[in-house]
Every structure is written in structure tokens, then in C-alpha cells.
């Protein structure tokens, strides 16, 4: 008898697990659901959490005003987030769940190229609008419903490199270091072309593996080519910090540039303030601005970690999307919403005026072009030294 009871208990536990996994949440009547897919746990989670927080801050803002009015009816905006752990299979699961169980028509994310390439056929087939950010050039190829809401090096690096040429004439040769994956290949190609076009010599172009922490060997190789500057490109900021420090220790005294995106706090943590001093880079936003301070306060309500500047883009993207849904007066006809998104430009964002571009590079105007900030690390803090308008 005891055995039977024990068995029954085990079965019940198993049953609960399976049932819990298979049941979908009930749909509230006047709710608009926005999906989020991103790496929320594991390495790189800071970016996934930026999507999640960006969407949630925008939702909270509009809910506080009584919800989003769609066709005259107020809707509470609900954000449904799933973790893709940067894996294609998990992203597909997340998107399937969002589309099928949660009946979501609008998704923010994902970040990883593999995730995006794996889910794109599904979202396109289901006419689901995807406000994404991946560096892969294929993100916007043959798409109708995908928008990229974050500028890539392609969008701004020419003006940055021009600035460098004018303001730092001593720099003639540049060595590039990028991660060995789709993001790195792509951005390194773009950077190589842009630096070449501007008349710089490419002293070296190296790739590294993402989990690497020790760069002395590859730096020895780079330093042998005697570059005036090292461009860290899309190297993740914490890793970039380590590279900077190890390069300084190996005796490199030249300029560091990072036109693939800078997170000052993370770089300074890895490099130490004295080593990071003078690094030039692309800042998504001005860390000294009141917008930054406000967003950071809001971010802290959702996640305990330090805010990534990606939060700006996804906050703006979520607002952009909600406004478009409101104007379209429908939360089901994604064609109408898409038209509203496309027509809305130029928009006011936290960063300033932004608009859609990208036709020349990707064949469709689904690339968000925002103002960009050229910043310098001074005494461990980020200082914006030039503001470059969206172009």
C-alpha cells in the first residue's frame, strides 16, 4: 500500500510538471501582449535584459496613463518575455510559444544572429512584426516584417572614422580585433572597408573566440605589426576591457578606438581606468544626460544588474511600436501596423530625432538611424565629445 502511495505521489509530481509545461496562460479581454525574446540568462544576458526592461518601461509608462487606446478601447500592455539562451532552438521554441500560446503579433528581440535567422521564417510566415537587433547583414534580407531598431557600424562608422582622420592626424595605421562569429566577421568587414576608404593602413585584422580571456598571444601578433591604433570593433565591452589592459601591459601606448559600441563601466572594470584613458568609441547615448539618469532609475525597478545602453533602443522601439498600433487602430492587422511604423518617421526618441533608412545597404528601409555619440573615456567616465546627427 505504501508503495502505491509513493508511486501515486511520484506520478502526481510528474503530471504537474508536464501539465504546467503544456497549459497556456488565459487571455485577458482588453490586454495587448508584446513578446520579448532574448538571452535573459547566461553569458550576454545584459543585452537580453535590456530588451525586456526597455519593453517593460514603455509598457508601464503607457499603462500608468490608462493603457493604450486601440480603436477607442483602452488596452493594458503586457510584456511576455522568453529566454532563448542565445540558442536557435530555444528561440524557435520561444517564438512558437509567443505566436501560438500567447497569440502575440509583435516581438522585440532577439539579439543573437543564430536566433534571429532561425525564427525569421516563422515570424515572416505568420506576419509577426519583429523589432530586432542583430549585426548580421542577413537580418533585413528578404524581409517584410523585420525592423532593426539599433544602428550597426554600417550606419555610423564612416562619420566616426572621418572625425578620427581630421582630429587625430598622427594615426595612420589601424589594427582590428573582432569576435570570430557572424557579428565579428560582418563588422570587421565593414570597418576594414571604411578605414581603407578613409586612407588608413590596416596593419592587422584578427579574430578571437568569445570565451577567451587571455589575449597576450594575439596581441603579441598585433603589436608586431606596429599599429598606431587598435580598433576593438564589436568585441564585447568586458572582453574589450581585458584586451586594453593586456595590450597596455605588453607595452602598447597608442590609441584605442571602439566604433562597434562602448559600455564605459564594463570596459573600465576590465581595463582599469588608467589603461582605458583616452579610448574613443561609439556611445549609444550620453551617460551624463538626464535621459540616461531617468532610464537607469526605471531600469533598476526591473533588474538588479547594471543597465546596458541597449535599453535606450528597445525602450524607444517599444514606444514606436505602441504608437503605431494606436494609430493603426488594430492589434491584429499587422500589415496596417507595419505601414504605421514605416510612416512614422522621423520620430522623437530619447536620443533625439531618428528615422528609417537602410534601403541602399539592405534593400529595405527597415533600419533605424539614430543620432550617435562619439565619446572618450576620461578618468574612468564616459564623456561625449561629438554628437553626430542621424544621417
Amino acid at each position, binding site marked *: 500500500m505504501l508503495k502505491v502511495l509513493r508511486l501515486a505521489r511520484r506520478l502526481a509530481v510528474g503530471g504537474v510538471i508536464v501539465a504546467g509545461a503544456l497549459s497556456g496562460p488565459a487571455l485577458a479581454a482588453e490586454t495587448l501582449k508584446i513578446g520579448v525574446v532574448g538571452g535573459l*540568462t*547566461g*553569458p550576454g*544576458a*545584459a543585452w537580453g*535584459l535590456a530588451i525586456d526592461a526597455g519593453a517593460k518601461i514603455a509598457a508601464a509608462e503607457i499603462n500608468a496613463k490608462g493603457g493604450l487606446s486601440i480603436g477607442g478601447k483602452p488596452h493594458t500592455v503586457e510584456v511576455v518575455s522568453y529566454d532563448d539562451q542565445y540558442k536557435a532552438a530555444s528561440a524557435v521554441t520561444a517564438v512558437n510559444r509567443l505566436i501560438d500560446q500567447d497569440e502575440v503579433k509583435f516581438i522585440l528581440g532577439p539579439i543573437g544572429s543564430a536566433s534571429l535567422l532561425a525564427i525569421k521564417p516563422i515570424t515572416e510566415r505568420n506576419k509577426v512584426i519583429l523589432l530586432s537587433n542583430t549585426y548580421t547583414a542577413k537580418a533585413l534580407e528578404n524581409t517584410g516584417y523585420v525592423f532593426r531598431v539599433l544602428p550597426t557600424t554600417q550606419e555610423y562608422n564612416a562619420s566616426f572614422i572621418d572625425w578620427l582622420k581630421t582630429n587625430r592626424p598622427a594615426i595612420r595605421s589601424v589594427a582590428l580585433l573582432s569576435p*570570430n562569429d557572424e557579428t565579428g566577421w560582418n563588422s570587421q568587414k565593414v570597418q576594414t572597408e571604411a578605414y581603407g576608404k578613409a586612407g588608413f593602413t590596416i596593419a592587422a585584422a*584578427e*579574430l*578571437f*573566440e568569445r*570565451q*577567451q*580571456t*587571455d589575449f*597576450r*598571444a*594575439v596581441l*603579441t*601578433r598585433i603589436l*608586431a605589426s606596429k599599429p598606431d591604433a587598435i580598433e576593438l570593433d564589436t568585441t564585447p565591452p*568586458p572582453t574589450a*576591457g*581585458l584586451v586594453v589592459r*593586456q595590450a597596455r*601591459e*605588453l*607595452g602598447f601606448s597608442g590609441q584605442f578606438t571602439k566604433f562597434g559600441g562602448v559600455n564605459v563601466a*564594463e570596459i573600465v*572594470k*576590465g581595463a*582599469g581606468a588608467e589603461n582605458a584613458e583616452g579610448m574613443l568609441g561609439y556611445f549609444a547615448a550620453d551617460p551624463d544626460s538626464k535621459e540616461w539618469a531617468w532610464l537607469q532609475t526605471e531600469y533598476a525597478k526591473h*533588474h*538588479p*544588474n*547594471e543597465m546596458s545602453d541597449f535599453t535606450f533602443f528597445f525602450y524607444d522601439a517599444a514606444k514606436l511600436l505602441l504608437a503605431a498600433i494606436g494609430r493603426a487602430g488594430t492589434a491584429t492587422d499587422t500589415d496596417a501596423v507595419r505601414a504605421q511604423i514605416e510612416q512614422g518617421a522621423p520620430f522623437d526618441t530619447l536620443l533625439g530625432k531618428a528615422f528609417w533608412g537602410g534601403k541602399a545597404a539592405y534593400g529595405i528601409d527597415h533600419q533605424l538611424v539614430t543620432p550617435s555619440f562619439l565619446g572618450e573615456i576620461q578618468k574612468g567616465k564616459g564623456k561625449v565629445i561629438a554628437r553626430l546627427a542621424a544621417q
Partner: protein
Amino acid sequence: MLTQVLLIAAMSSALYMLLALGFTLIFGILRIVNFAHGEFVMIGAYAVFALTSGLGLGYAAALPLAALLAGGLGLLAERALFRRYAGDELGGMIMSLALAITLQGAAAVLFTIDQQSVERPVTGVLRIGDAVLPKDQLFVAGFALAAVAAFHLLVQRTRFGLALRAVAQDPETLRLQGVSPRRLYPAAFGIGCLLAGLAGALTAPLYTIHPYMGETAILKAFIVVVLGGLGSVPGAIAASVLLGVTEAAVSTWLGVTAATLTSFVAVMAILLVKPTGLGGRA
């Protein structure tokens, strides 16, 4: 360039030894391939971070405490989780994977996923010819080598070390000498984790700290131990040097990804010729 490569190789080798010795010790004694070994490295690093930034301790005090903490947790893990798997290679391996996931998750909850860094206790560089030698790395390498030497003395010169070597070679016969292998397991596991924690505590100021840092560490430990022969201390030391030199040379002259591929192909080649590794005996 050659001098620089050799210096890089020497420093990586010392760290690899520290990483691999604990791993190989735990396998040698308990026959458990501890996939959570890298997480004990992570624990050591976070302990230093918490003790220095949280409690305001100096690095000199935090370093031994962090290693002891990792060792203590390892001891607990042996008691609570691994004891039952001594000799069951498959079961122990799976339990260690579960522990690795749990510890990563716990670190992410406790410390958030942010990368953290620890103030360096030593700064500046030494120059030897045209080669450059950062002093903090020199310190780490020196300390690691000293720890390896201390471990060597413990194993070679003490009764406890004798018992450890004996149980690794033939646990049943050790029982016939009146010593229970089970009494050695917690200490062996604890020392293995202590060495891992020490590696983490030593490298904490060198690199950044995050909940998933253990995966890189375990990969290195794995390659070294497989190359050197599971459970073989001299093998692990030889393989550390081999891996350190190969990596430094290949990534300097051919590139980083080539180095990864080379190390795995080398592992396969050596295992095919000598399945028990460089220092292993069938």
C-alpha cells in the same frame, strides 16, 4: 617575439597546472569527472570579490580565505552529493553537471550577471630584452607554482599524501592496510576544490568575474588532464606545459582559432596513440 611567447607560455602553464591538479586529484581518488570544477574556480573568484569590495579586506587576506571557502564548499558537496557516486563514473559525472548548472544559477542570483572586477594587488611590468612581463601575472604564476609545489610536497612527503596515492592506485588494498577510502574522499574533494578556488582567487584581479567563467576553466583543465592522463599528477604537469607552449606559439603565429583546433586535434592524436594520456598507466 620568441622570448615573449615563452613568457606567455610559462605563465599559462603555471595556471593550467593549478587548474588541472585539483581536477585530476578528484578523479584519481573518487573516480569522479567533476564538471563543476570550473564553478569552484568561479567561487574562488567571487569570494575574493565579496571579501575585498564587500567586507573591505585586503587581497592578501582574501586570497587564502577564498581558497578555503571553495575547499570547504567542495567538502560539503562531497558529503551531500558525490559520496554515493564514488566509483560510479557516469553517475558522478551527471551529478557534477547538475551542480555546475546550480552554482552558475546561484552566482547569477547572488551577484547578478554583471561582470565584476577586483583591484589588482600588484601593478607594473618587468622588461626582459624586448619582452614585457606584467608583474601581476608574474605574481600569479609564481604563487600558482608555489601552490603546485606545496601540493606536491603534501602528496609526496606526508602520510596523508601517501594514503591519497595509495587509494588512487588500489583502494581495496588500502582497506587491507586498515585505512578506509571513504575517510579520504572528503579531504581529497576539498583539496581539489581548494586548488580550483585558489586558481579563481588568483586570476580574479587579472580577468573579470562572471557567473559563467567556469566553463572556460573546465575546458582548459579538461584538455590538460586528458592529455596528461586522468589521475596522473606528473602527467598533468607535463601536459600543462605542453598546452601552454602550444597555445602561445600557435595563437601568436597562426591565430587563436587555429590554437583551439590544434589543442583538440593534439588531444585526439595523443589519446589514439596512448589512450591513457601522457602520464597515465592502463
